[in-house]
C-alpha cells in the first residue's frame, strides 16, 4: 500500500490517508479481504502521528471501506463499490477543472474535448 502525504495542499493528513486508501480500493490496487498495514507500521512508514492513522482507519471503517477485526488488523471490506458518489465527484472534479482550464487556454471547446475523451477511452484496455 503506497501512500504519499503532501504538506502543502491544505487537506488534513488523516483525510489524505483515507482518500488514498479509497482510491487504491476503487482502482483495484487493493482487493477485497486484503490486509492493511497496522496503525503503527503505517505511522512509521509515513512518519505521521499514530493517532492520525488510527483516525483515518476509523473513518474508513465508518464508511464501510475497511473492516477491523479485534486483534488481527484491518482488511478491505467486501461490500460493493466503496466510493460514494460524492467522493467520486470530489476525486475527479479537481482534475476536470484543470483539464477544462487547459483546454480553454488552447482554444479547444468543450464538445471537442468530450470527443477527444471518448476517443482516448477506446485506447484503454476494457475492465
Amino acid at each position, binding site marked *: 500500500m503506497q501512500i504519499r502525504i503532501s504538506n*502543502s495542499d491544505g487537506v488534513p493528513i488523516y483525510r489524505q490517508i483515507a482518500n488514498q486508501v479509497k482510491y487504491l480500493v476503487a482502482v483495484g490496487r487493493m482487493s477485497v479481504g486484503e490486509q492493511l498495514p497496522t496503525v503503527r507500521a503505517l505511522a512509521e512508514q509515513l512518519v505521521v502521528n499514530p493517532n492520525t492513522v488510527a483516525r483515518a482507519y476509523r473513518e474508513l471503517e465508518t464508511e464501510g471501506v475497511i473492516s477491523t477485526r479485534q486483534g488481527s488488523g484491518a482488511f478491505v471490506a467486501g461490500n460493493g463499490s466503496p466510493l460514494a458518489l460524492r467522493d467520486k465527484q470530489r476525486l475527479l472534479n479537481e482534475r476536470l477543472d484543470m483539464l477544462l482550464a487547459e483546454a480553454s487556454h488552447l482554444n479547444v471547446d468543450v464538445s471537442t474535448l468530450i470527443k477527444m475523451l471518448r476517443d482516448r477511452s477506446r485506447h484503454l484496455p476494457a475492465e
Partner: protein
Amino acid sequence: MSSATLPHAVAAKPAEAQTIVQVEHLTRRFGRRAALDDVSLSIRRGMVFGLVGENGAGKTTLIRHLLGLLRAKQGSVRVFGLDPVLDPVGVLGRVGYLSEDRDLPDWMTITQLIRYNQAFYPAWDNTFAERLRGDFELDPDQQIRRMSRGQRARAGLLAALAHRPDLLVLDEPSSGLDPVVRGDILTAIIRTVADEGRTVLFSSHLLDEVERVADHVAFLRHGRVALSAPLSEILESHRRLVLRFADSQSARPELPGALSLSGAGHEWTVVTNGQIDALRAAAARLGAEIVDETAPSLDEIFVARSKMREA
C-alpha cells in the same frame, strides 16, 4: 529498576500518573524582560506535544525549567509529579534530551559516549544502543569532534533514546540538518510514542514537521501561551478565504475577524479563526465575494498569528 529510586511516582494516584508534565503559572524574568509570562500547560502520557513560537518566544527557557536547569521562581513545574530541581536524578533518569546545539563531550568516541551514558542511566539498553548505532551508521571509534553536523545529531539522538526514556524532550532538533537526518529524528519520535505510554515534547520552527507528528500544539508568543489545543482542533477551526472585490483595493481593506490579510488589487487572502460569519458580512459590505475557502496549513496559521497585532 529506575522506579526503585522514585518513591513519589509510585505513590502518585493513577489519574496524576497520566500527567507527565504539569506547569502552572510559571513566570521567568531575565532583567526586565519576561521570558515566560504566566505559562500553564500540561502534557499527558502518550502525547506528542509540539511547542512552537518565534525565536526568543520562551521555548528553550520553558524546556530548561522542565529539565531542572532553571529553578521556578514564580509558579511551579512538575515532571512525573516531581520537582526537577529537587529531584534531578528521579526526573533526568527517565528523560531523553536532545538540544539544538547537541552539547556532547567532543573528545569522546561513540564507544566512549555509549559507556558514559550507560553508567548514568540504570535503564540503558545496550542492545538497542548498538542497533541505533548501526542504523545511524556511526563509526564506534570516531571522535565526536570529527563528525559532521548530521552525525553529531544522530549521536545525540542515540544518547537520548537508548535508555528508552518515559519522556523524550527535543529542543529544535531539526535545526540546520539535512532531510535524511531530520527523517531519522521524526521516525524516532513516532517510534517513541508508538511504544505504549511514552511521551514526547518537541519544539520546532518547522511547522510542516509539527503538523505531521504532533497531537497537541502550544504556541508561545512573547513568553505567553497564545494558543494551546489539540492539533486537529487548531486545523479545523481556522479557515483561509480568498475574497474578490468588485473594485480594486488600493489600501488594506478593514476586515473584522481576520487574523491576517494579504494580497493586492481585486483579490485578498484572509486567515480567520472561527469568525467566518462576521467576516462574510464585512466582505459583503465592502462589495467582495468569497471565491475560495480552504483549510490553512499549520504554517499559515502560525504566520497569521505571529503577524497579529497585540490586542
